């Protein structure tokens, strides 16, 4: 880092040489803020009492020299230069009445804050890295014993599973829990699945029988099952606040409609 060059009392020649060294070393900077921080060291004052105006001039001078030496600077250095030129004008010229935006002093104070914060983080980083560190100053167990994971698997089977399994073998057939003919059975889940997408269209009172699947209303066994399942499903939907149910009187048709919010 070239900052040491700035610590020494500089004659104008050595100062210029140092500045040039700085420019040649521009790749060594972590961006314009880093460069500003380095330049600020030349003022040899506490960062809190830094002259931002002077710093801005130093920076602009640096950019000018770089340009003169035909050193290509990254865009963010030039953006910073433009901003500092603006800051400089704000600091030098008295604010015009009705001027909008922050004052030059506010902007300068923020820049000083940023520099101080960056310097503080640099120092904190150095202190952190200088701590006693694992693997260098202190050590973890060299021969850790791995914890063996003993996974016990418990198999579960109930008497019903056992009997079902036996029944399945003896019938040489896919076991069915109920010997009822499932073709005529509609479950509430099936009814729910069927009704859910349909209720969006049920703006007006509609007879529940309208929701029975096609063909199910003719066969009495199927109609009973489908009716019971659809009624149970509609109770579920009403409970969920999705529909309303009404029945004018005992044995009257049960009618449903979409709930009105």
């Amino acid at each position, binding site marked *: 880092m070239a900052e040491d060059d700035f610590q020494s009392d500089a004659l104008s020649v050595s100062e210029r040489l140092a500045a040039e060294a700085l420019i040649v070393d521009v790749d060594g900077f972590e961006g314009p803020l880093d460069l500003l921080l380095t330049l600020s060291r030349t003022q040899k004052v506490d960062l809190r009492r830094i002259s931002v105006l002077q710093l801005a001039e130093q920076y602009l001078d640096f950019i000018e020299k770089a340009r003169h030496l035909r050193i290509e600077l990254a865009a963010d250095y030039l953006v910073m230069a433009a901003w500092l030129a603006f800051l400089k004008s704000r600091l030098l010229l008295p604010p015009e009445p009705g001027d909008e935006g922050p004052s030059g002093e506010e902007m300068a104070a923020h820049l000083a804050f940023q520099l101080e914060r960056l310097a503080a983080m640099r120092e904190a980083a150095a202190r952190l890295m200088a701590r006693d560190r694992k693997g260098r100053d202190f*050590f*973890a*167990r*060299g*021969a850790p*014993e*791995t*914890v*063996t*994971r*003993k*996974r*016990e*698997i*418990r*198999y*579960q*089977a*109930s*008497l019903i*599973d*056992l*009997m*079902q*399994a*036996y*029944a*399945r*073998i*003896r*019938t*040489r*057939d896919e*076991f*069915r*829990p*109920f*010997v009822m003919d499932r073709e005529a059975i509609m479950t509430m889940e099936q009814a729910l699945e069927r009704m859910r997408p349909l209720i969006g269209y049920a703006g007006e009172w509609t007879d529940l029988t309208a929701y029975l699947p096609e063909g199910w209303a003719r066969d009495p066994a199927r109609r009973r099952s489908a009716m019971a399942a659809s009624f149970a499903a509609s109770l579920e939907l009403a409970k969920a606040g999705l529909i309303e149910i009404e029945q004018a009187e005992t044995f009257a048709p049960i009618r449903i409609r979409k709930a009105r919010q």
Partner: protein
Amino acid sequence: MSDEMEPEEQGETLFDAPPMGEQERMVEAVLFAAAEPVSVAELAERMPHGSDPAEALAHLKKRYEGRGVRLVRVGDGWAMRTAPDLGFLMHKESVETRRLSRAAIETLAIIAYHQPVTRAEIEEIRGVSVSRGTIDLLIEMEWIRFGRRRMTPGRPVTFVVTQEFLDHFGLESARDLPGLKELRAAGLLESRPPPGAAAMPGPEAEAEEEATEGQSELFED
């Protein structure tokens, strides 16, 4: 400490060897951090000149007596090891419940209903071969065990269910298992007979068979 030191050694070292307490700390730290057992020679090499790692080891060994870790000799090195009685702390146990596979539950059911039953018979009933793993699993679970050998050519082993099995399924005996009639009544079995199935002996029929056999006790535990 220093009066124990050989005068010759004192002359050699620029500094005195650290006090024994320090040496003990050093040995402790080195053995803790080392991946392999460390020999006395290596300790001496690592420690400041004039140290006496053997003595430090002796102190350290004493200090760790009865503790959760111990200083043990491994080959010609020394290492820290968990006290043997605390080995149980190095296991993490977890229990996972799984459903028995279809093959296992069917095999188990056949054994329960037909015991004592041979493997060939199980295969005949299931219509597929029974894998060794299935039988092993059921034995490992202590739900089945070897019964007596069948007095037929080849003297095949039979399988029977265990007390553990009865406990698990809440049965007094295997005879309490619902018969085909009850299964049918409970709707677990379709009334139509299996296609081309010859009548299978129920557990009752097998019970007689068991009584007639009284040979090898070898396979019973």
